[in-house]
C-alpha cells in the first residue's frame, strides 16, 4: 500500500513537471524541431547532465535501493536497425502528435480530450508492433 502511494506520488510529480516545463506542449516540440529555442534542448540537456552524474554516482558507490538490492539499469541489446528505424518512426509521431508516452497522459489529465485519440493510436501501434515483430529487422 505504502509502495503504491510512492509510485502514484512519483507519477504525479512527474506529470506536474511535464506540464509546467511545457514538455507536454505540441508548440514546444515544433519549436524544438525548428531550432528556434533553447528550451527543450536545455530541458533534456540539464536532465541528462544531472542524470549522468546520478547514474555514475550509483555505479561508483554501489548504491543500493530501498530493498537493499544493487541498483541496475538493464543494458539494452546491441544493434542498430531497431533503434534507428524504431526511433525514426517514433520521432515522426512525436512531432505530429506533439506528445510522447508520458506527456500524452499528462494532457489527458489536463483536460485536452482529443489526446485520447493519440493514446488509442499509441496502444494500437504497440499492438501492431507485437503482431509484426518477428518479421522486422532488429
Amino acid at each position: 500500500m505504502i509502495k503504491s502511494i510512492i509510485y502514484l506520488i512519483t507519477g504525479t510529480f512527474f506529470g506536474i513537471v511535464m506540464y509546467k516545463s511545457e514538455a507536454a506542449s505540441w508548440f514546444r516540440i515544433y519549436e524544438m524541431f525548428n531550432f528556434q529555442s533553447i528550451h527543450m534542448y536545455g530541458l533534456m540537456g540539464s536532465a541528462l547532465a544531472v542524470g549522468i552524474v546520478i547514474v555514475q554516482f550509483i555505479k561508483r558507490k554501489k548504491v543500493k535501493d530501498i530493498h537493499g538490492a544493487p541498483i541496475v539499469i538493464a543494458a539494452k541489446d546491441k544493434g542498430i536497425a531497431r533503434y534507428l528505424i524504431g526511433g525514426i518512426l517514433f520521432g515522426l509521431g512525436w512531432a505530429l502528435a506533439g506528445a510522447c508516452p508520458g506527456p500524452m497522459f499528462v494532457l489527458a489529465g489536463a483536460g485536452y480530450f482529443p489526446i485520447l485519440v493519440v493514446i488509442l493510436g499509441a496502444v494500437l501501434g504497440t499492438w501492431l508492433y507485437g503482431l509484426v515483430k518477428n518479421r522486422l529487422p532488429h
Partner: protein
Amino acid sequence: MEWILEPWPWYVTGPLIALTMFTLLYVGKNFGMSSNLRTLCTLCGADKTCDFFCFDWKGQRWNLLVMTGAIIGGFVASNYLSENQVPDLNPATIEQLHAAGFESAGNAYVPTELFGNESFSDIKTLAILLIGGLLVGFGARYAGGCTSGHSISGISNLQLPSLIATIGFFIGGLIMVHLIFPLIF
C-alpha cells in the same frame, strides 16, 4: 509563492526529471513510460493475439500507477498550479505557425486546432492524432523505449543503443516538421 503559477524554467524542470528517474531507481524500478502501452495492450486482451503480450502484467502494476499519477499531475498542474499557462515561444515560431493555419500559437498551451473538442468532428484532425499515436506506439516498442527510457535513462547510463534511438527520434521529428508538415498544414 507566485513563481509556482508561472511556467517553470527548463534548468529547474530538467533536473527534476532526473530526480524522477532517481526516485524510481531508488525504489528498485526503471523510468520508462512507453512500457505502459504494452501493458495496456495485454489488459485489452492482446495476449490472445501474440506472444509479445503474454507476460504477467501485475509485474508492471507499479508503472501503471506512475502513469495514473501522470494523469493526476496533468490535472493538478493545469488547474491549481497554473493561470492559463502559455508557452513563451520564439516570435518566429509563432509567425510560422500562424502562416500554417495555427491561429492559437502564442495564446494556448497546445494548439486548439488539434486539441480543442471540435477535433472530434473533424476527420483530418482525427486522422492526424490517430496516425501520430500509431507512430509513437509502434516506434517506441520497435526501438525498445521512448524519450524517458532511452533519451533520459539510457543516455544517463551511457548506453549506445539509447543514443542511436535518440538520434532516430530527432531524424523522425525533423522529417515530420520540415518535409511532411508543409504537405499537411
